[in-house]
């Protein structure tokens, strides 16, 4: 777009009133991208300069891709186990041995303690297990009836044991388990978060925009829900839900019920924003422009804090992930055979087991990384949310 050059109006003081149709502001700055950038573009530009947030965003993309392609990325299926390799330690990856190139690990040599019958695994340099990409392994369903059996990485011979991050107490590959667990852990909270979000925005919005008696009523409801102790509620619900539901189903039900309690914080924030925006001059002027209620809300008020809402949404997902992890760890949330990071961590409850197999804590690392990524992104969004306030 070329810059519009404007005929000089001369000194406006001496110019006749007809000169009005020409432009008085002659020293216009050149057009900058910024001038035409919409709110979201500005938010993105700000977000981009937030380094931690960009790292978090990369992490987030990785985590959700892993969740999406879990069966393909994991070397083994979630049900594969081998009791010979209970608590087998992580294998080291090798690239070269005996002048032979190729990604490989060494197999285990098993020894059984004659007194305790405990198995000890030591790596055997003579037993070379070659790893390959896109190898044939356990079959899995892609979509519906479509199945496939290729895995991104795995032993070239599917029978060979490969435990890159060690094995758990059933002899399952922890690496595969963490990948499979990503699916549940990263997604089970989303529905609950979305539900709480919807409730919070709607009720808070009504409360703030309508005001008066409605506002009082909704605020008292908020106070009631805020006073409910969540952990006992969770415990009670876990006990009260029908026994014949699957564990995932039960957990899903619990998150939804918890969402019914968790909307309160957001409702208060949204109400406050509405209250302050209602008297803001640009909202008053929108009303005077003839905009009706719905248009005022959705076109003028909501966009001015939608980015704040997205930030708070991002920041509430980690809470759900942590809730899942801690409840499953306590045995109240998800349970085997469902696989989630929390369920995997449940195995790490026993201190003696931890001493022998510290790698069982690795799902915890996944939790930390996922939560940090989300928090970084949320922080970045919050900082970038209002590009008009410097």
């Amino acid at each position, binding site marked *: 777009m070329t810059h*519009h050059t404007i005929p000089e109006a001369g000194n406006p003081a001496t110019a006749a009133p007809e000169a009005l149709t020409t432009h008085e502001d002659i020293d216009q700055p050149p057009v900058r991208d*910024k001038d035409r950038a919409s709110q979201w573009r500005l938010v993105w530009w700000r977000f981009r300069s937030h380094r931690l947030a960009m790292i978090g965003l990369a992490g987030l993309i990785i985590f959700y891709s892993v969740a999406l392609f879990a069966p393909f990325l994991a070397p083994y299926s979630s049900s594969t186990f081998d009791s010979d390799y209970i608590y087998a330690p992580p294998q080291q990856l090798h690239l070269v041995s005996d002048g032979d190139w190729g990604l490989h690990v060494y197999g285990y040599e098993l020894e059984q303690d004659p007194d305790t019958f405990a198995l000890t695994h030591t790596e055997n340099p003579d037993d070379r297990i070659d790893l390959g990409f896109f190898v044939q392994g356990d079959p899995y369903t892609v979509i519906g009836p479509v199945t496939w059996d290729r895995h991104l990485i795995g032993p070239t011979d599917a029978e060979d044991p490969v435990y890159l991050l060690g094995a758990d107490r059933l002899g399952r590959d922890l690496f595969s388990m963490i990948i499979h667990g990503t699916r549940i852990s990263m997604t089970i909270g989303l529905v609950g978060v979305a539900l709480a979000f919807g409730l919070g925005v709607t009720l808070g919005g009504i409360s703030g925009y309508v005001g008066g008696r409605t506002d009082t009523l909704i605020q008292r409801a908020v106070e009631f829900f805020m006073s409910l102790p969540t952990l006992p509620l969770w415990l009670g619900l876990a006990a009260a839900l029908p026994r014949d539901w699957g564990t995932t189903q039960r957990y899903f039900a619990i998150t939804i019920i918890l969402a019914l309690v968790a909307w309160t914080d957001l409702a208060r924030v949204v109400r406050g924003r509405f209250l302050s925006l209602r008297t803001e001059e640009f909202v008053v002027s929108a009303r*005077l422009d003839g905009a009706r209620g719905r248009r005022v809300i959705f076109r*003028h008020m909501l966009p001015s804090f939608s980015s704040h809402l997205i930030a708070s949404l991002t920041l509430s997902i980690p809470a759900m992930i942590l809730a899942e992890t801690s409840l499953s760890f306590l045995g109240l949330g998800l349970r085997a055979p469902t696989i989630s990071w929390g369920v995997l961590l449940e195995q790490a409850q026993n201190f003696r087991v931890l001493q022998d197999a510290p790698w069982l804590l690795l799902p915890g690392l996944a939790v930390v990384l996922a939560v940090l990524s989300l928090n970084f992104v949320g922080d970045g969004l919050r900082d970038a949310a209002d590009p008009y306030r410097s």
Partner: protein
Amino acid sequence: MTTESATTMATDAVGDHAGHPLLELSGLHTQFATRDGMVQAVHGVDLTVPAGKTVCIVGESGCGKSVTARSVLGLVDHPGHVNAGHVWWNSPTLGHVDLAAMDPKGADIRHVRAQEIGMVFQEPIASLSPMYTVGAQLGEMLRLHQGMTKQQARERAVELLTRVGIPKAHTRVDAYPWQMSGGMCQRVMIAMALAGDPTLLIADEPTTALDVTIQARILDLFRELQDETGMSVLFITHDLGVVAEIADEVAVMYLGRVVEQGTVEEIFENPRHPYTRALMGSIPTLGHTRRSAGRLSTIRGTVPHGAHRPTGCSFHPRCDVAVAGLCEVTAPRTLDDGASLIECHRWDPEALGSEVELGLPTLRREATPTTAERAHAENVTSATGNNLTESAPLLEVREVSMRFPVRSGFLNRHRADVHALDGVSLSIRPGETLGLVGESGCGKTTLGRCIVRAEDPTEGQILYSGSDDAVDLAGLHGGDLRSHQREVRMIFQDPFSSLNPRMTLGQIIGEPLVTHRVATGSELQDRVAQMLRRVGLSPDYMDRYPHAFSGGQRQRVNIARALILEPKLVVADEAVSALDVSVRAQILNLLQDLQDELDLTYLFISHDLSVVQSVCDRVAVMYLGKVVEVADTQQVFDDPQHPYTEALLSAVPIADPARRGEGRRIRLSDDLPDPIDRPAGCFFHTRCRHAVAGLCDGAPPALVPTADVVDGQDDFGRHRTACLRHSELELTGIAGTQEADR
């Protein structure tokens, strides 16, 4: 410490290092690291403050006035810092020191801040903590810096509060800032600045946030304190009227440099720099009415952003007398003849070639109109008045009241009412501009908002006679209201908060067309483009967002939005108050041109009497929710019939240093009565110098026509006042002060 000893101390300080001025800035540079790169906010300022004098720094916003002041005390906020230059301070205790070289967190500069240089800021209420009493805040400083005991500090605090003119200081010392008015808070801030008996007081726009009546009293206070203590004052303001009232010397700043400096008489009588001249020309001065003064002169464009400093002379893009090939190439040198200083090629014989004449013609300052001129102007006014009387009022406000309930307690019980409007009646004829003036809190904005129905008045009628019969706007709802809101529009005060930052100019201006289903698609685009051109903006701006524009440009957008529905009546609520003087003149001219072009009727709400006088046909003066006087502009300003109007007029600073200290001042006390619990009788009697006990606190006065009738005036245009004693009082208006002047 007593006042006497403070005086001696100050004189001593002057005597000690006689070779140096009290404060001397030399080559001061302050820069800010911003997203747009390094911005040099102060770009080589040389300035001296002699002992015992008041030096005013004047200029538009963005010229680096405040940053200069803050740089003196090392108070520039991050990310700014002083990157070059010296601040030589002739300290009574430390000797001749460079404040810029001191560690901004060190003990020396803290000593200077606490004991030697006091500072007063613009927002008095924001500068005081609402959690502590003013006595506690003053006392803390005294205990910390002067090692006083609690008891001593309290006594000294009372003493200081008395000194800054706070009545009943021994009880006020225990008041919280939020219990005091803005003027009182500013006095407290001044008391704080005086606590260490400073030899220099830096005041950064100390009266900008205050009403004109309060401003006049604060300026008096500065003068009194200076007479008493002999301290110097560095006073920062954008208001040339204030400069004329208070300054001994004036420094005009533009884009981080002092472009002209001299004594106040020199600057006002013979301004040399084109920028100073333009500033002088763009302020409406009292004594010039709309019909006599015509259009205001303006300065083109706006102050550029510090990151886009023009090459050569930074003022050349806005300068009418710039020399092509010179001004945009080389920066002018500083021409310093010892007494005054100027930076302009037009005054530099070396830079200027032979083809351009040295200097500029003496500025013809518009003389105050002679009596003959005034009589002529009055004839013109009454002639137009006659034209106007032929039509019935466009808008008639009848007995409108607006009460805001005050609720408190457990069950939110209704305790009292804030009376924002109390039985206001007004009429506006088609094609005229009615000014609405008064101090803040008098209800003028509420009245404007009731008329456009942004608020719903509690009682009363607002009769609007647009195309058809009179309709009561106050009783309309839903679609009926919306269709009338097309014809009665509002221009908001704040050009920043009134535009949705998330919508493009096209969307903002087009919004009324969309909501009223007037136009869509390309027709909408065309109409918006046409409107943009009308208000002096390029149609190319349609797809840009408000953040790309300056305050003046945004206000044009606001005007475009108000006018796109082709309204008949426009309520301009302090539409130019947030703008710099040069831009303000542009917008005022635009409003007047649009009025002529589009047959608009304005309700012009403003606290600035000189602006009101220059644009309005008639003026209504409001006090505490009531109209106390209404008449033709000329009559209100020449022959006020209400003591409040008289006081308002006398408080307006006049941009003429020669007329300073005429003793014409009528001062109102700082405290407005509480709008919840109003005085009995005439609301103004608590502050009125003409009030008579037993009369004025009895029955409330009604708004009645005065005895004097101007020829050819019908009943509608009669001068009305709400004062019981108006017929016996001899009140002075602007003309009166001018007669006294001669």
